[in-house]
């Protein structure tokens, strides 16, 4: 069934390649930021606001400063320049200036000989405040408020961003529709819960340079923010990314503590380390926005979709972060994998006095796709169509354009539908399992790399890869792509080895270091495989051309007659005069010494010309069709997802081990949001900032996962590949929700679906006298 099976022409790609850094990680030898100690290093502490919203009247740091072992105490005024990941919404400061905007906002930073001394110093800081009204509910902030959280909010409200889009004529489509459905979704905020809490070390040296080691997904954006806020030119700042223990979007913004840490290093002249505990991580958040959406869908009597009418209100928390993008994505990412001729969207993101929301795996797509896919399940039922048939009737074909000008090139969505339907035994199960057991379909699509490099004017490549090979035959690979555990170093090495024909152990991916790594805009928007992969391939092909010319000189056969084999270049029909990689290399080095090569990637021009047209554009998209099977205990409301058949189109999977890991991990994360994870607030206070009370699913809750990789080659992806890091998450949630409906006849429009809600739903349906499957 698979069209992307490992092709015989590849030695490595398409196979199962264990992570190159795996042995170091599993033996504890891999170096994370907190493993690094610098001579004379101090520890930083961050005093966080206990007030949700307050004017800072005075901060007296004199007694804190005079404590023995305290080297510096900083407040916001020293570095007041605002920053933020998007150039258009710079509204964060390293340390609060003028106001504290949430419980956890940083209001002072301390450097001391150790963390306990830093804590004592923080306890000695006297802060006088004038409390301001606190805003917990984004709905309140839609209208003018007494004390807007930021001056830049829309017309005296707390609205940070409003997006209004209309394509076609939605009202006319609804007027003509034979069937309409509506889902009003409510989604609790969730957070990334990566393994490694953030950590940063900064060191200012007498040569006028500043070096920063940090657990970040985007070293380049951190580099820029440090320069902007501290007023130091980028070329005098060096950013190093050690191993990173997961990010999922939570380490993609430049974060206040990273800049505060650098400020403390400048202030003291000593290296300073700041490391977070889990509560710090929860308070820094930047997780998925708490969301309310309202999705209306119109269709004709045969199930052809005619219009989407969507509204969303997003709880942004105290800062903008990626929020402008999130606001767009909550509309435009509804636009696949189906053809929808009319589309209207109004999205508003509202500041509240809570930890900031931001980008989290399947950013902007997860909640809207949940509501859409649940609505489609309801639509199929009301028309009397099988959910698969409804999707097939509306599937976007390859090489098409959505009404909002998203360019779809490759799509194997139909193959995904076929695979999950057949493998799951759908026909024998749907509406046929006994009460309490059910099966459901959910579909997804996601961007394979944002087309918009956030900061680049004039346009520069989104990724550059450098190769260097010397007489030892080892190939050093430099790039600022950030491996955060997703396997990009492994893929980078494998692509280079594949193209050159050399063994994988010749290739060393050098730790990200802005002094030597050419710019790549980091690990977010599922861009790395696609963009870095293309850049790496081009760099390796350039190096290969040099090696083949040398081999040609040695063996006397023209380059176009040489085949690349393992560790050698072989003239067709004359294997006995093959030239080894090392001989070719040494020949090529005779005049120039060590060889270097460069490859870069820029996405092609795309998208419409209307306001916001770039949002959601990507050089390719992934597609998914998941089927979930569940069993519900109708008395307790507890349920178990037994199997998920995960049919996914990532084009050609380049490392099957990594792709399967991403799918399984995505399903685990998606189930978390569905089953129990919630940033639980009472007003503005986060009640569960710990991994004991934030309910990540336990191993026993994981379903059996059957990965069905049915993608066909993408025309622009490296070796035909597309993303597999975020898209695999989105289909999980609606597949399980629709399976729950099949099991017990209850629709869930609010997440998480906790057992008490299940019990209440069953009871409600019984009260209404609407038995389901005879129960």
């Amino acid at each position, binding site marked *: 069934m698979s069209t992307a099976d490992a092709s015989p022409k590849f030695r490595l790609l398409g196979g199962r390649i264990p992570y190159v850094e795996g042995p170091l990680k599993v033996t504890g030898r891999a170096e994370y930021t907190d493993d690094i100690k610098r001579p004379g290093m101090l520890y930083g502490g961050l005093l*966080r606001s*206990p*007030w949700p919203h307050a004017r800072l009247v005075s901060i007296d740091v004199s007694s804190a400063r005079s404590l023995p072992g305290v080297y510096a105490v900083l407040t916001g005024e020293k570095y007041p320049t605002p920053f933020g990941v998007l150039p258009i919404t710079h509204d964060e400061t390293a340390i609060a200036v003028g106001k504290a905007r949430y*419980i956890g906002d940083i209001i002072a930073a301390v450097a001391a000989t150790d*963390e*306990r001394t830093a804590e004592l110093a923080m306890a000695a800081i006297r802060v006088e405040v004038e409390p301001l009204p606190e805003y917990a509910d984004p709905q309140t902030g839609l209208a003018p408020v007494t004390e807007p959280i930021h001056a830049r909010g829309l017309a005296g409200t707390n609205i940070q961003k409003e997006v209004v889009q209309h394509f076609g004529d939605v009202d006319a489509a609804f007027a003509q529709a034979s069937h309409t459905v509506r889902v009003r979704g409510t989604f609790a905020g969730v957070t990334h819960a990566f393994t490694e809490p953030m950590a940063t070390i900064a060191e200012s040296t007498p040569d006028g340079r500043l070096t920063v080691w940090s657990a970040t997904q985007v070293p380049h954006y951190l580099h820029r923010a440090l320069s902007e806020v501290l007023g130091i030119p980028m070329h005098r700042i060096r950013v190093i990314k050690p191993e990173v223990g997961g990010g999922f979007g939570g380490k993609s913004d430049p974060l206040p503590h990273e800049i505060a840490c650098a400020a403390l290093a400048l202030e003291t002249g000593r290296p300073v380390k700041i490391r977070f*505990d889990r*509560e710090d991580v929860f308070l820094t958040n930047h997780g998925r926005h708490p969301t309310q959406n309202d999705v209306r869908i119109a269709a004709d009597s045969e199930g052809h979709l005619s219009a989407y009418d969507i509204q969303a209100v997003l709880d942004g928390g105290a800062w903008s972060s990626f929020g402008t993008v999130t606001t767009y994505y909550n509309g435009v990412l509804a636009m696949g994998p189906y053809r929808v001729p009319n589309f209207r969207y109004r999205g508003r993101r509202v500041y509240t006095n809570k930890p900031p929301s931001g980008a989290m795996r399947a950013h902007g797509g997860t909640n809207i796709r949940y509501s859409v896919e649940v609505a489609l399940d309801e639509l199929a039922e009301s028309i009397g169509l099988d959910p698969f048939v409804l999707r097939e009737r509306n599937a976007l074909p390859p090489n098409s354009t959505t009404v909002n000008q998203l360019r779809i090139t490759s799509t194997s969505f139909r193959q995904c539908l076929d695979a999950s339907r057949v493998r799951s035994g759908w026909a024998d199960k749907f509406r046929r399992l006994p009460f309490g057991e059910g099966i459901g379909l959910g579909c997804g699509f996601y961007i394979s790399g944002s087309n918009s490099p956030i900061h680049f004017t004039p346009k520069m490549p989104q990724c550059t890869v450098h190769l260097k090979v010397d007489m030892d035959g080892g190939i050093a690979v430099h790039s600022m792509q950030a491996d955060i555990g997703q396997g990009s170093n492994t893929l980078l090495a494998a692509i280079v080895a594949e193209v050159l024909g050399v063994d994988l152990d010749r290739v060393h991916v050098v730790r990200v270091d802005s002094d030597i790594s050419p710019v790549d805009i980091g690990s977010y928007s599922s861009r790395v495989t696609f963009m870095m992969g293309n850049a790496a391939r081009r760099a390796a092909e350039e190096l290969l051309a040099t090696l083949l010319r040398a081999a040609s000189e040695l063996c006397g056969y023209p380059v176009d007659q040489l085949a690349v084999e393992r560790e050698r270049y072989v003239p067709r029909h004359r294997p006995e005069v093959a030239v080894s990689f090392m001989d070719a290399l040494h020949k090529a080095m005779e005049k120039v010494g060590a060889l270097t090569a460069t490859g870069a990637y820029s996405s092609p021009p795309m998208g419409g010309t209307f306001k916001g047209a770039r949002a959601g554009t990507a050089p390719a998209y992934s597609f998914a069709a998941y089927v979930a099977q569940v069993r519900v205990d109708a*008395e*307790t*409301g507890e349920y178990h997802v037994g199997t998920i058949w995960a049919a996914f189109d990532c084009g050609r999977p380049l490392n099957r081990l990594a792709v399967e890991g991403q799918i399984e991990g995505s399903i685990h994360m998606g189930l978390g949001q569905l*089953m*129990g994870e919630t940033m*639980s607030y009472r007003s503005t*206070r986060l*009640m*569960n*900032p*710990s991994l*004991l*009370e934030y*309910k990540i*699913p*336990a*191993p*026993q*809750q994981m379903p059996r996962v059957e990965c069905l990789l049915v993608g066909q080659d993408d025309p622009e992806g490296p070796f035909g590949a597309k993303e597999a890091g975020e898209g695999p998450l989105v289909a999980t949630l609606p597949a399980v929700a629709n399976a729950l409906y099949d099991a017990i006849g209850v629709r869930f429009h609010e997440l998480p679906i*906790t*057992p*008490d809600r299940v*019990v209440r739903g069953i009871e409600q349906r019984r009260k209404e006298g609407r038995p389901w499957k005879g129960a």
Partner: protein
Amino acid sequence: MHLDPFELYRPSTVEEVVRLTRDLGAACDVLAGGTDLLPNYKMHINLKPNLVALEEVEELRSYTLERVGSMTRLADLDRDTDFARAYPGVAAAVHEVATPLVRERATVGGNLLVETRCFFFNQTFPWRQSLGFCLKADGDRCHVVPQKERCYATFSGDLAPALAAVDASVELAGPDGRRTIPVLDLYDPGGDGIRRHRLRPNEIVVAVSFPAASRGLPANYQKLRIRPTFDFPELGLAAAGLVESGTVRSLAIAAGGLETYPRRFDEVTRPLVGERLNETNRNAASEAIMRSVRPVHNTFLAPDYRRRMVGVYVRRALDRLANGPPGVPG
């Protein structure tokens, strides 16, 4: 989060422990497995400058099927198939505590005296400070049920209800010697909820002992929580008793995870002894127990749901005693 420095004492006899705790007075805590106390210390909750560790006390570490030393690791009990046959309900409760890794450290005595838990209490110092602290630590008011008299933190041990259901006792040692009391007498239903036990000053739990009649008695334990591991109970329901050909010969039901102390529901179960168990009296018993409990909103799952699950769990517990093999874990 970090541990503040403390003085650690490692006595090797029960008598030494008692003497040390008396000498140190209120300025000390007793350290069993530390899986609950030390996380609380990291959050700077009710810190003491001295810790008296029980780890080296040989007597506390030994166990037989009649008498289990208080420092017995839960993992050791969990691995013991003889223990599981003898006390299936208690073994099930042991198995449900936290995670395998935690059970390697956690002890029987520690689980009996585990600190009560609450959203407003199990938080870091700055978190609690931002709310003006609470009645149970550093403050003077309760945020769950706003008033200043009583703490509503939830009793979160798994073992106590399971032990209570089989009439187990605890052996205590203190300055006035040793005494043995029923398990539930460790707790104080009439208290203010702040103190989690009613041990006398400088008294420690030495062992748990089982009456001969409890050996092999059918029993079960069901634990409610959002995840099947890690989490503390949001309801732990233990039942033990003999149902022969449908007639109840003996029966006890106890629950934890609901209120500030674990409880037994003898007023409901005693009248059933000698009766034939049927759907009517089973449902009536479940209803009566459900009505008598008063969980509050200080754990993850909503109190009305937890209460409702008491009804479901009692029905299931009785069905298992009547029909099922003994000790099928919940």
